[in-house]
């Protein structure tokens, strides 16, 4: 294969990414531009960007690899990732948008009024983000190595440098555009080859034996009930606890638009997963020799040149590697943006400069880990992150939104129990191997019981604690009250306008300000004023 084409494709993606990043830099004017794209992003672009950062190396390369390697079990991962957004939609999307928080620690801090809870959440967010970035860098190393024979470390370092550079330069605003572009690139990079495969394979009837290629015991009938259920529960709930999901809702103007954005996201990622799964099915029929651990994840990259000879195959390979690169870059940049926000607000004063340094720091750590470790299956590595997020953060976030008796101590206890039990099980599982006997499945797939343990601990400690934060009613009313429709909002907005203009001036200068001030004028006035307005009218009528 001609190594020049893939390298040209890689260079093209990097150039386009930096051009959009630089264009974004020119319009990133204020601190809130850097953090949340100033809430002027259209739903379709916002949804593209969310999908662009959600679809990672795990599903771009890893899904087809695992379908090839282990069979239809692999499909549970994308099903769980897509259904995870359904739970995000039902339980957190609109309330979190209305909360005025940029990051999960912001939300926990605001809801529970506890600095300790905030710091613990920050640490967990960092751990989750880093665990998630490592497989992306592994994927980059693997992909560039296979396609262009570039040494593995070069691929990982390239992605890390581009990500930290573009995040530091442009912040969220430019990242939104970059990731919107990357979603469509990823989608095309798998959909176009799939169309070509279908035409090629359709022309000469495949001489495959279904019972050999798709044996029943590798199919849905071979599933293990506990393992599947535990994995699905963790994947479903894990999405809620991912650090880069929450910040995206803040770029939607209202809670309702956050919901519709989520619906569009679900449609987009579902379409992508179907295409990526198709690559896996085709791989089972045409490339059984690649079904080995470590190699299977490269099947999406190797199929085009195998199935379609000549220049067309080379061009398709270049397209796939461009999409793969977009997958590594998209997810890593989204994560680095949220981790940098967290680090810069918790360790430094939250300025643009500290955000830039935090971007470098938060990429450097997973890069070192990625260089020091051997890649495992990409889709299972990403799945593990979901299990940890679901155990450590999701119960507390959901209870924080829906349960008024949650206290800071309850949340801290729940986060500690969930994260300690889950990481303990995940570490013990490979150490003990099959020696664990009947507990082996419980350790390998701990989600079902660690999530339950975290939730029960949170509830019990909160009930014993009784020191509910003073602002509970205020926060909950803000989280759940719908925004006024445009026409009626205008009247109350006029009254708030003077305050808001002042607030925006403050909002531009410090990271701590835009959330509290602009969110106050937008969120609280919406929730509170409806009633005040009504009460004033009633009283004057009386």
């Amino acid at each position, binding site marked *: 294969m001609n190594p020049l084409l893939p390298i040209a494709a890689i260079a093209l993606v990097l150039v386009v990414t930096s051009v959009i990043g630089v264009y974004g830099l020119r319009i990133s004017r204020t601190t809130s531009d850097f953090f949340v794209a100033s809430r*002027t992003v259209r739903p379709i672009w916002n949804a593209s960007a969310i999908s662009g950062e959600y679809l990672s190396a795990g599903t771009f390369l890893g899904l087809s690899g695992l379908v090839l390697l282990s069979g239809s079990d692999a499909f549970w991962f994308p099903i769980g990732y897509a259904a995870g957004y359904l*739970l995000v939609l039902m339980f957190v999307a609109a309330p979190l948008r209305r*909360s005025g928080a940029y990051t999960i620690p912001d939300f926990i801090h605001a809801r529970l*009024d506890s600095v300790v809870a905030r710091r613990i959440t920050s640490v967990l967010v960092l751990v989750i983000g880093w665990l998630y970035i490592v497989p992306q860098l592994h994927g980059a190393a693997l992909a560039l190595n296979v396609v262009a024979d570039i040494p593995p470390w070069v691929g990982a370092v390239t992605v890390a440098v581009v990500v930290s550079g573009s995040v530091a330069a442009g912040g969220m605003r430019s990242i939104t555009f970059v990731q919107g572009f990357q979603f469509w690139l990823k989608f095309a990079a798998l959909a176009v080859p799939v169309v070509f495969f279908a035409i090629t394979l359709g022309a000469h009837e495949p001489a495959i034996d279904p019972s050999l290629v798709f044996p029943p015991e590798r199919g849905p009938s071979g599933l293990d009930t506990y393992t599947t259920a535990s994995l699905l529960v963790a994947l479903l709930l894990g999405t809620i606890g991912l650090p880069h999901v929450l910040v995206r809702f803040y770029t939607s103007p209202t809670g309702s638009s956050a919901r519709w954005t989520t619906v569009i996201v679900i449609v987009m990622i579902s379409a992508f997963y179907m295409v990526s799964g198709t690559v896996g099915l085709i791989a089972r029929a045409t490339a059984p020799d690649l079904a080995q651990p470590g190699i299977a994840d490269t099947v999406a990259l190797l199929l085009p040149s195998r199935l379609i000879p000549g220049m067309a195959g080379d061009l398709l390979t270049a397209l796939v590697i461009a999409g793969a690169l977009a997958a590594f870059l998209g997810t890593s940049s989204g994560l680095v943006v949220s981790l940098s926000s967290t680090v810069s607000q918790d360790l430094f004063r939250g300025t643009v400069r500290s955000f830039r340094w935090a971007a470098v720091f938060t990429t450097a750590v997973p890069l070192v880990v990625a260089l020091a470790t051997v890649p495992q299956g990409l889709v299972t590595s990403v799945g593990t992150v979901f299990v940890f997020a679901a155990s450590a953060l999701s119960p507390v976030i959901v209870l924080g939104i829906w349960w008024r008796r949650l206290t800071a101590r309850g949340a801290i206890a729940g986060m500690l129990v969930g994260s300690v039990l889950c990481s303990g099980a995940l570490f013990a599982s490979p150490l003990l191997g099959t020696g664990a006997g009947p507990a082996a499945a419980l350790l390998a797939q701990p989600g079902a019981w660690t999530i339950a343990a975290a939730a029960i601990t949170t509830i019990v400690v909160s009930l014993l604690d009784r020191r509910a934060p003073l602002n509970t009613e*205020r926060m909950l009313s803000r989280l759940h009250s719908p925004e006024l429709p445009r026409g009626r909002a205008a009247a109350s907005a006029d009254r708030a306008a003077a305050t808001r203009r002042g607030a925006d001036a403050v909002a531009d200068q410090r990271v701590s300000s835009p959330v509290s001030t602009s969110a106050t004028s937008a969120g609280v006035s919406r929730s509170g004023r409806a009633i005040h307005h009504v009460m004033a009218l*009633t009283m004057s009528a009386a």
Partner: protein
Amino acid sequence: MSDPDATRTAPAADRRHRPGRPARERVTSVDRPAPRTEPLARAGRAHVSEAETLFTRSLMRAQGRLALVFVVSFVLAVVLVTFVISGIPSLHDQSIAGVPLPWLIQAYGYYPIIIVFAVAYTVAAMRTERRFRALVEHE
């Protein structure tokens, strides 16, 4: 507000893109830089009226019930489909383009369910919010 010491400049530049928008004014804080220790969403009125608490509570309960009903029915739908594709071996004899039906259903069949539930939930949640708003306005 959280920044009483901040130097304010008014009128501030409108941050939306408009032709002829005023140039950006740089505003600086006189606060001592420090890591965040103040909750950020503290702003707002210190007291929430009883009416509002009631309003929020019932809205929350309605929305929570709605979400739970949808989650439970979604899980039931998933369990049902999974039971069908894993528990009926004769399905395996049916195949399209060489791929057995259970494999195809697992690869493609769950996403339409997820999408239908997402759209239905969003419509229902918006209807609840509209109803509550109407209730408050007619009171």
